[in-house]
């Protein structure tokens, strides 16, 4: 961790400097259009070394997968093989234009076509679209598909979407974007969907349910088939939030259990580094009912040639061009390196690692739901009066670990949501468990250590309330 304060690029600026040389025009010049030009372009003026040093030093102020264990629950922070990066950054991709035309893009189209087929097979679906740029975008696709399906059948009154109370925030937010009303379904004592509540909520105004399986509690929804049947019987459709696919690749296919449409977070399960926020891919796959409703275009094959085509009853286009292509290359590379046995080994190891960590800490960190977890588990950090999950999280930083996801899911008080992923060694899990246990000890003996944590970072806890009250969102000179 680089502890020195790093000025802003603007603060490193000096008049007349520039970090890149550009050629002089090699053509006769044309007069610029008076009246339309700007007077000033207030950007920094820095040289190439200053730029390199500035951003390199900034990078040194991050924890990352490549440097630290990063067990963020629900985020599947796995190691992303460097082969993915090599594959995605080949000059042949970087210099390919999305509108070059099918004749001139056969390599890109073939990759997309094959990836669609593999994802359909892995999820147990019928067809897929690689359009959506992230999980939430895939949710938007899926919910629009469900909406259109009902409307195409003349069923205009289905405006409600059922959402379990453990769901990720994107689920209800997506529903609002398409004008659906959300109905929250409580969890039962076991952390699953409360079937009675579900049954009670189902009527002919319900468009469907959005279900995450394994759930954000890290639990497999044992009643998944029953739930799908209940919803289907009530005329609704089932949306699968596939963000947690990492627990079940090669072991369980959501489509087999009656999910009608699901997004895959390719950037999680299929390994694109998260880039400090993105990009991702939330491609959607659909079963029998919704296959024709996918967003498009999707890759197709005709007479041995690849092309793009819009699905018959599709909801249309969700972004310009063909999805986050670079992420697709990574997913393709990754899946090809694993094959079916590798996918199974992946999920098995992810689940084994989570259960192992859980077993090591659950005597000290209480769980709300005790049963065997899948790829992640949710513990609670409120076992010592006056010490909070936040304090534990910050103290983990001192031990060289990125904190888990905290205070989510909302239904577990003081939640610590821990997802180790399959790419971590047993030794790393041991070290992390040791740190958690040590911190629990410190919580009792030296709580101040936790309250004042972290101690090894360039800044301490920042005043987020003040920052939001009077926001400073850009450099003001």
């Amino acid at each position, binding site marked *: 961790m680089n502890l020195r304060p790093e000025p802003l690029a603007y603060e490193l600026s000096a008049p007349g400097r520039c970090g890149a040389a550009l050629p002089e025009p*090699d053509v006769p010049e044309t007069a610029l259009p008076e009246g339309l030009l*700007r007077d000033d372009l207030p950007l920094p003026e820095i040289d190439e070394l200053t730029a390199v040093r500035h951003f390199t030093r900034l990078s040194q102020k991050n924890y990352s997968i490549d440097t630290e264990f990063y067990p963020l629950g629900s985020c599947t922070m796995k190691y992303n093989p460097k082969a993915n990066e090599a594959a995605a950054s080949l000059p042949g991709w970087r210099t390919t234009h999305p509108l070059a035309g099918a004749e001139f893009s056969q390599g890109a189209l073939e990759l997309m076509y094959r990836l669609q087929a593999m994802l359909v097979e892995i999820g147990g679906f019928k067809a897929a679209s690689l359009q959506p740029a992230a999980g939430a975008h895939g949710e938007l696709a899926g919910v629009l598909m469900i909406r259109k399906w009902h409307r195409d059948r003349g069923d205009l009154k289905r405006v409600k979407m059922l959402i379990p109370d453990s769901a990720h925030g994107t689920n209800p937010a997506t529903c609002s974007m398409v004008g659906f009303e959300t109905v929250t379904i409580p969890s039962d004592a076991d952390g699953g969907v409360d079937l009675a509540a579900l049954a009670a909520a189902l009527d002919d105004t319900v468009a469907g349910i959005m279900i995450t399986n394994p759930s954000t509690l890290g639990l497999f929804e044992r009643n998944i088939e029953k739930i799908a049947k209940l919803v289907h019987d009530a005329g609704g459709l089932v949306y699968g939030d596939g963000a947690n696919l990492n627990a079940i690749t090669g072991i369980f296919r959501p489509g087999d259990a009656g999910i009608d449409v699901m997004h895959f977070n390719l950037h999680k399960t299929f390994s694109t580094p998260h880039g400090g926020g993105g990009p991702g891919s939330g491609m959607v796959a659909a079963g029998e009912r919704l296959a024709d409703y996918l967003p498009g275009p999707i890759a197709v094959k005709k007479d041995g040639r690849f092309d793009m085509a819009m699905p018959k009853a599709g909801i249309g286009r969700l972004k310009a061009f063909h999805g986050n292509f670079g992420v697709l290359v990574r997913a393709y590379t990754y899946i090809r390196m694993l094959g079916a046995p590798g996918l199974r080994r992946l999920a098995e190891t992810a689940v084994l690692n989570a259960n192992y960590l859980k077993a090591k800490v659950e005597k000290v960190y209480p769980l709300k739901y005790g049963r065997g977890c899948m790829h992640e588990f949710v513990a609670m950090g409120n076992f010592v009066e006056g010490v909070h999950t936040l304090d534990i999280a910050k103290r983990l930083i001192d031990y060289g670990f990125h904190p888990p996801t905290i205070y989510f899911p909302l239904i577990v008080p003081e939640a610590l949501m821990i997802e180790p992923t399959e790419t971590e060694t047993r030794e790393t899990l041991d070290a992390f468990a040791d740190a958690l246990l040590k911190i629990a000890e410190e919580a009792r003996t030296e709580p101040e250590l936790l309250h004042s944590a972290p101690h090894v970072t360039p800044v301490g806890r*920042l005043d987020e309330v003040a920052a939001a009250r009077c926001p400073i969102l850009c450099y003001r000179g």
Partner: protein
Amino acid sequence: MPFIPNTDSDRSRMLAVIGKPSVESLFGDIPEKLRYPELDLPPALSEMEILREIEALAAKNLSSSTCAWFLGAGAYNHFIPSLVPAIASRGEFLSAYTPYQPEVSQGTLQAIFEYQSMAGSLFGVEAMNASHYDGATALAEAVLMAARNAPGRETVVLPAALHPEYKEVIRTYLEPLDVKIREYAGTPAAAAASLDPSAACLVAAYPDFEGRVHDLSGVADAVHAAGALLVVHADPILLGLFKSPGELGADIVTAEGQALGNAMNYGGPFLGMMGAASKYVRKMPGRIAGQASDAEGRRGFVLTLSAREQHIRREKALSNICSNQGLVMLQACIYLATLGKNGLRKVAELCWHKAHYAAAEIAKLPGFSVTKDIFFKEFLVKTPVPAQSIYDKLSRRCVVPGLPLSRYWPDRTHELLVCVTEMNTKEQIDLLAASLKEASK
């Protein structure tokens, strides 16, 4: 498996700690008949095998590095300083998550803040967010934001000459809502003058899809007078030279930021840019970084105003966006800082001069005519023979002449949208002109 490290012996030791007999027994919650399906997937490949395969696929596409390249239309062949990918690919940036824990994410957070600052300078607004999926979704979300801002008003007014795929995306986003889309064919000024009270916003494209750079002065006043918001969708490279949307009174600005240091990459990942006048910041979707202090008064950066976002507000959030285009934004950030005030202006000037030289050369060709409107780096050419046939012929010889408009409008068969950037040499432009001439014989 190199990236699934625990061995069978690790497994046994771990199972013993858990107290389970087998890995399979961890999956008891999965309905048995659905467990362990046979997957029909190709066999696993080692790294060297898959890279060989992917290299072969990557080689099967037309490449801007081996062609004279004049195709733009929303994805641009601009210069990328070598330091941009070199730095952005550092593991600490590449493999970090969204910066939810600010103390160990100051690298990402300060970069977002710097991006917001520089993009804000470029667009002339104080508040930018940390990215949308691409230019099209940024614009769609901007239109949603404008519509939300004026609940009674049911139309949004778009230029007919907006990128056709952007229009499709806006249609997809608006379809479920009670908002209607209207298109205008003339100038934004004319459209603004005739806005009716149902309009929530007017969108101006700067330049529009056909390359025209409209004079936007006065447009904001007219739009505001009609009670609507002005949304300007701009080419960020153009802003190296032309007045900023903020200076022209835009309320919301959006852009496709790929041109700022990101490769064309078959169309993604790209960078949706969005900003707004500061009074609208709490109505703007997307992640935002802000400045903060710690207890010792040290400056740091945090994600802020998150009460707008899905993870806090769930169904009341302004958008469902969660993962965004962080790394692409980082590349734009490094690009903007590296080129800076002097470099970006120079890029814009080069585009201007070269595009105008190309237009002049093409205008000399028998049967060709070139737009008379003000343009920046892209311009419309009328061709004497179908543009698609020119495209096919020339592209096979590695001169990619532009976009035949028939791709989007089947009846516009004799129009070619030509894009010239700082990457095109005079030699290439002359080759284009010569090739066009030959292909039209």
